[in-house]
């Protein structure tokens, strides 16, 4: 037998390098494994990752203006937006050509709407101008400066041209600025006027209410999880069914049930009035405000708190509590010093789950939240479905996603995600 020197490459029996033979023999397995999960991978990519990326990319995309009004955008480059003077004739001429083309292609309303997000009134300005511009002869009808101002006096306002120039680049930070109640102006980023600030307030409300909901879930869920882990098998199973029951009921039904319970002519108010705890005129307002959202969402998210807590508590042997008591601890001390610290990973896991679910919740705040109890997600839905400002919706969504990721990262740094136990 010849011993191989340590610096020589190890060879397998047929003379190939050992590493090569190994990877060759494992390749087949790897390919088979990959093929097995390929349908899922493709599905996730097509149905999940691509739509999200395309949606999020809308938050910075802004090629509508430069595509629809290419000549104008080019001509505006030489104009100093801060000079306080109107652009010169070539810009007007270029715009006349662009708006005529746009009107013929019927895309002028789109760009009008886009610019209307930034400065209201522009949509109608574009509509009116396009109607007139269709009949012009661009070669001979000039000069257009006075002509356009005659069509609509808006063309004589510096601000309109400033808006046009500010929002002409292909990529914009405008949506993100809007998302945090700021706006992009010719002078740079600026705060929205007082009457238009709503989103920061909504973000704050979403955060605070999600925290309140998480906290109420901990308070309500902890004793139930404790019972689940400590009751005899049969009772625990029954309790488990009660905990899981809401999962088997439609979300809409549950939320609507809260409407029945909480409204001013609802069950709770009726009982309180009958017990003469509140007078008939002063029925409590518990729905279509923050209270309604908090109550309904705490109820809906409670199982997500109980289950991780339960799975952690299940692993804490009762002998710890007995040991603590035999060492002289009262029931409370034994619980607080011995049992509670060991159940913290469960609380952490439940809290993360509930908080992340709560921060993006939509249906329940929509139904029971009224105007005071809606979340940022309701605003996102509004921009997607009603105002059609998808860019702003995408920016809001991106901020929400980043906020959750940052939160997750912080939690991992402080508590360690390995300490979170969702099962077993």
């Amino acid at each position, binding site marked *: 037998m010849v011993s191989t020197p340590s610096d020589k490459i190890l060879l397998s029996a047929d003379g190939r390098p050992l590493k090569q033979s190994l990877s060759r023999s494992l390749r087949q397995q790897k390919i088979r494994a990959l093929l097995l999960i390929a349908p899922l991978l493709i599905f996730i990519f097509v149905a999940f990752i691509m739509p999200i990326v395309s949606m999020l990319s809308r938050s910075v995309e802004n090629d509508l203006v430069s595509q629809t009004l290419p000549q104008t955008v080019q001509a505006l480059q030489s104009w100093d937006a801060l000079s306080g003077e109107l652009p010169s004739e070539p810009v007007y001429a270029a715009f006349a050509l662009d708006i005529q083309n746009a009107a013929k292609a019927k895309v002028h309303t789109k760009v009008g709407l886009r610019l209307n997000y930034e400065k209201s009134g522009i949509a109608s300005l574009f509509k009116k101008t396009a109607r007139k511009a269709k009949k012009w002869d661009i070669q001979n009808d000039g000069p257009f400066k006075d002509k356009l101002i005659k069509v609509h006096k808006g063309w004589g306002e510096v601000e309109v041209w400033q808006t046009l120039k500010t929002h002409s680049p292909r990529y914009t930070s405008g949506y993100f600025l809007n998302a945090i109640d700021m706006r992009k102006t010719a002078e740079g980023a600026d705060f929205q006027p007082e009457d238009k600030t709503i989103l920061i307030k909504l973000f704050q409300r979403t955060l605070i209410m999600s925290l309140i909901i998480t906290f109420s879930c901990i308070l309500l869920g902890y004793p139930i999880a404790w019972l689940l882990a400590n009751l005899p098998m049969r009772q625990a199973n029954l309790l488990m069914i009660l905990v899981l029951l809401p999962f088997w009921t439609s979300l809409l039904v549950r939320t609507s049930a809260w409407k029945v319970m909480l409204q001013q002519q609802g069950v709770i108010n009726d009982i309180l009035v009958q017990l003469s705890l509140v007078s008939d005129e002063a029925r409590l307002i518990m729905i279509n405000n923050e209270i309604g959202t908090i109550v309904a969402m705490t109820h809906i998210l409670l199982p997500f708190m109980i289950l991780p807590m339960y799975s952690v508590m299940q692993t804490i*042997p009762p*002998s*710890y509590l*007995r*040991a*603590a*008591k*035999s*060492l*002289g*601890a*009262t*029931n409370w*001390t*034994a619980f607080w*010093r*011995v049992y509670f*610290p*060991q159940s913290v990973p469960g609380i952490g896991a439940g809290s993360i789950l509930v908080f992340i679910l709560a921060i993006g919740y939509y249906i329940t705040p929509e139904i029971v939240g009224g105007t005071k109890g809606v979340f940022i997600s309701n605003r996102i839905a509004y921009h997607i479905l009603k105002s059609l400002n998808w860019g702003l919706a995408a920016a809001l969504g991106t901020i929400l996603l980043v906020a959750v990721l940052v939160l997750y990262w912080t939690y991992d740094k402080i508590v360690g995600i390995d300490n979170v136990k969702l099962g077993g």
Partner: protein
Amino acid sequence: MAKDSHLEAFVSFNRVQKSYDGETLVVKDLNLEIPKGEFLTMLGPSGSGKTTCLMMLAGFETATHGDIMLNGISINNIPPHKRGIGMVFQNYALFPHMTVAENLSFPLEVRKLEKSLREEKVKRALDMVEMGEFKGRRPAQLSGGQQQRIALARALVFEPELVLMDEPLGALDKQLREKMQFEITALAHRLGITVVYVTHDQTEALTMSDRVAVFNDGRIQQLATPDQLYEEPENSFVAQFIGENNTLNGVVKELKSDVAVVKLDSGDIIDCKPVNVSEVGERTQVSIRPERVELNKNKLPKKAHTLTAEVLEFIYMGDTFRTRLKVAGNEDFIVKTRNSSNQVRLKPGEKVEIGWSPECCRALDA
């Protein structure tokens, strides 16, 4: 040690009964007195009620009937944390989120001791079990034997007069278990504490205890010192449970004060010591230890009855030989002989005459 009956009992069970479901009794009419400083072991198979008794003493279970007294005071209605009883649990129950020192400090903290005093006591307790350098570790970083020592130190750190141990050595390997058996008894005697120890391991019970209470079916079958238990079992359960034992079944033919003549089911006649038989004609189980069976006829008393046996198996075990015989229809009759230079080694198929002195052969209940 401490066997004087006139001594005031430190712990006493007085007609204690326990039922979990109201239909069956797990503990039936338990009476037990433990004097101060005694190391008493509750020994029995699982389900015999020994752990239930320990839990009632610790306060984690309530007695359905009867009184449990500690130092002359009934403790039935005193919650566990006020009983001041140290306890070592089966799986140690060391708090995993606390260091060793914090674990030991816990009983002192809940007793609101000053910090300096706490530290001193923790140090002393750790030194006592030779674990001083491990005080900063977490339980998960310790081996089984080390955890066992810490659990012991924690049960002793607040200086209880009574310490309960619930199968504390069950999770250790054989060698470590033997070492710890010795250490625990030495420590208990040095500190003069009373120990109630629960185990199902008879060797542990015999080597460690001052007295052993053998439990079966919710009752104490025999309460005696280890040697009495082994040499003079009072009934067939104890004879079977403690040590190795050969049994032969038969009927009492003659009954005198110190000798009973038993006719075995095979027809053979043997002499026994009557222990648990009261009348002629009664069925009896005769018990004899493997090492008391004599193969050498010359060493037997002159009038002793002998039986013919057939050798089935011969096992060489180093210091001893184990020979399995067929005796009076019983094919599991074991004889243990010492490995000495002149000892014969039997071969399977051989026929031999065996016998014993009547006082080594006990006629017990059938």
